[in-house]
């Protein structure tokens, strides 16, 4: 069902509300496209739709529209040939089960994160890696993200599968967004843009309701590059200063009609109605888990104040052994060039 106006307004609503994020749970929110929809109902077929919160009696839980960006892996792969509602439902149950054990926080490409993984080859059996998230993808239990850092002048990228049981802890040290959805150009950028200290502390933000967008423009190294960045409409990169023939060729190869192609967009996304259903289902569970975690944190804070815990549950966060944090297999003989090694899969 393609409800063009609804999709449009839904997207507008998302864009607006993204900048004004409500941290408090919304149990009876009317979704922003409500008032506009009523005028369109006359155009559509007589489909009776239950409006959340309007009916006397039952209140329907509706997740905030930002969930689409916060938890994109709950949305299934849009290819229609491979979709099955039962399988998606079972996968979501498994994902929530895993989330009840490990807190997988909200993050975006451009956030700096630290991941602790169980590693048999490490000295203290855990390997912690800090890096900036340059790409994330996958849906369901296959969701992954790539962290990049420069260690001892060697560029290192590690691909982590979010639901892998070897992952002990995922922390977001700096929660922010960049101007692009994919930061693969950092591979061709100057190394300082990908360098983050391995013992970085989590940064606290004053304003918790907004996820800041870092308008940083990155400087690239001189060519040759890994990809043709001039053809990709990158916002987060400084002026490339290429000869005009590159831009001419880019124009020839460009597909400017794609931004008008509604069916292409439709095929790439899950319909808004389904998204609402999925996130409503997920929202209540995630809320409960968050609540339990808060209680656990308060409890442990109280306990710590009463008694001193020495050497118990060696917090992987605190082990900082210089040099051996990154799995030794990742470090090769360093040169001045920072280049991407084969992404290491966990």
């Amino acid at each position, binding site marked *: 069902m393609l409800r063009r106006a609804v999709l449009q307004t839904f997207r507008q609503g998302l864009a607006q509300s993204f900048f004004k994020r409500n941290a408090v749970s919304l149990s009876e929110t009317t979704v922003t496209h409500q008032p506009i929809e009523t005028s369109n109902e006359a155009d559509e077929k007589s489909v009776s739709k239950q409006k959340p919160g309007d009916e006397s009696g039952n209140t329907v839980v509706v997740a905030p529209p930002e969930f689409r960006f916060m938890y994109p892996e709950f949305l299934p792969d849009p290819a229609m040939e491979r979709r099955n509602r039962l399988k998606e439902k*079972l996968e979501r149950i498994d994902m929530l089960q895993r989330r009840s*054990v490990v807190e997988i926080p909200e993050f975006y490409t451009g956030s700096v994160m630290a991941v602790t993984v169980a590693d048999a080859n490490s000295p203290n059996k855990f390997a912690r890696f800090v890096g900036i998230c340059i790409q994330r993808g996958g849906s369901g239990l296959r969701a992954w993200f790539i962290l990049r850092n420069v260690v001892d002048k060697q560029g290192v990228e590690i691909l982590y599968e979010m639901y892998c*049981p070897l992952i002990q802890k995922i922390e977001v040290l700096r929660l922010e967004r960049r101007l692009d959805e994919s930061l693969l150009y950092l591979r061709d950028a100057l190394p300082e843009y990908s360098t983050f200290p391995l013992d970085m502390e989590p940064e606290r933000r004053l304003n918790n309701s907004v996820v800041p967008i870092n308008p940083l423009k990155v400087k690239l190294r001189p060519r040759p590059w890994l990809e043709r960045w001039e053809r990709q409409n990158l916002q987060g990169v400084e002026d490339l200063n290429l000869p005009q023939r590159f831009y001419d060729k880019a124009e020839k190869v460009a597909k400017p009609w794609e931004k008008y192609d509604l069916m292409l967009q439709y095929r790439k996304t899950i319909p808004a109605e389904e998204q609402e259903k999925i996130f409503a289902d997920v929202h209540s569970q995630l809320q409960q888990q968050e609540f339990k975690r808060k209680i656990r944190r308060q409890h442990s804070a109280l306990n710590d104040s009463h008694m001193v815990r020495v050497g118990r549950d060696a917090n992987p966060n605190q082990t900082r052994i210089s040099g051996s944090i990154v799995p030794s297999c990742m470090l090769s003989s360093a040169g001045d060039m920072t280049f991407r090694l084969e992404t290491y899969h966990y």
Partner: protein
Amino acid sequence: MIKARKIDVSFLNKESDFPMKPSGYMCVNSERKVWLIIRKRKRESKKNFWVVETCVLCTSVDQPCELFFNHEQVRTMSRVKRRTTHPPYWHVLKNNQRQDEKISSDNLRFVREVIQDKYKNKSPIKGSDLDIEKKEWDPKTKRSGVIARNIGVQHMWEKDGKKVVCTVLHVLDNHVIRYVPPEEYAKSIIGAKVFRNRKPLGCLVVGAEAANPDRFTRQYCSLFNEVGLLPKKRLARFIVTPNAVLPPCTPLTAGHFVVGQAVDVYGKTIDYGFQGVVKRWGFKGGPASHGATKFHRRGGTIGTGRDKARVWPGQKMPGHMGSERRFCRGLKIVRINMKYNVIYVKGTVPGPTNSIVQIFDTLLPRRKFTEAPPHPTYFPPEDGTLPQEDIWDSNMHVFGSPSISV
């Protein structure tokens, strides 16, 4: 393809002049004539594949054979028809041609009521209701199989952190429709072929996915009249030993299988349509550049000029690829969800997502059952206790359990 069997060749007269010592293998060809293979050689690329160079026609194994030297090379890549798109001629016509009937809504409601009355809910058969005497399980028992739908692929992890790709199979609403006893089945066309030189076994007809009888023809619905069930969209036959027989109307669920057992999954592979020689047979094609004129994905030579002077049957060429019946043997069941009737099987299964497959206990000898499975099938406990909802293999990491630390 000819099946060969090793026999004792001592009956042959030692004075007779054979060009060489007989190989001791006997084969039966499609005309049901017995040949004694004297000389054979292995074809390079295939394992159990012989090109028979010399063989001798025998009238029977026990008597001294009539010598008839046949030096013809038998090429086993014969022109067997790989797929049909039409059902066999003995199938009844299944789907109704939708007539443009202008039926009023009242009459439509009445028709629905009639259907509901006819197919009133039958209470599922319990273990205690089995009319046939419960027979014991033994290692030679063949149980019924189950019809399921392949709903996708999910990643799971083992206890040591190793990732495993699992196929999710949703066991549909299976019901036993009919049992055909061994003697009767051996007389049918298919049964005669299957049990030509073997002891005959029985055949259980199982149906899955109930549907509105409106969409089927009367002859098709009559197949289900005895049982009193709503007609099913899919039917399948499973060969069973007589001690694993189930009465009609017995439901089959995911509990029919045991976590950790090996199963064979039969399905029709993905239909790729008309494909070229590179994708279909794995040819290398030609160079992409260096002056190659219109020769990038073609087959090249299709035969020599001298030997036989024609294209041999079975020459690999472009054609229809996929949509073939295949078995995936010995797949291990790692998880069963009793609530949703879903089986997770380690590995992949023939066919695309949302296609129908059949699941049986494996015939691989080393992975067969050593202990008795739910025999003849699983029945929920009659005291009303619910079974465990989610059963995992001992090797798998359960998602709600703490993270793995090596």
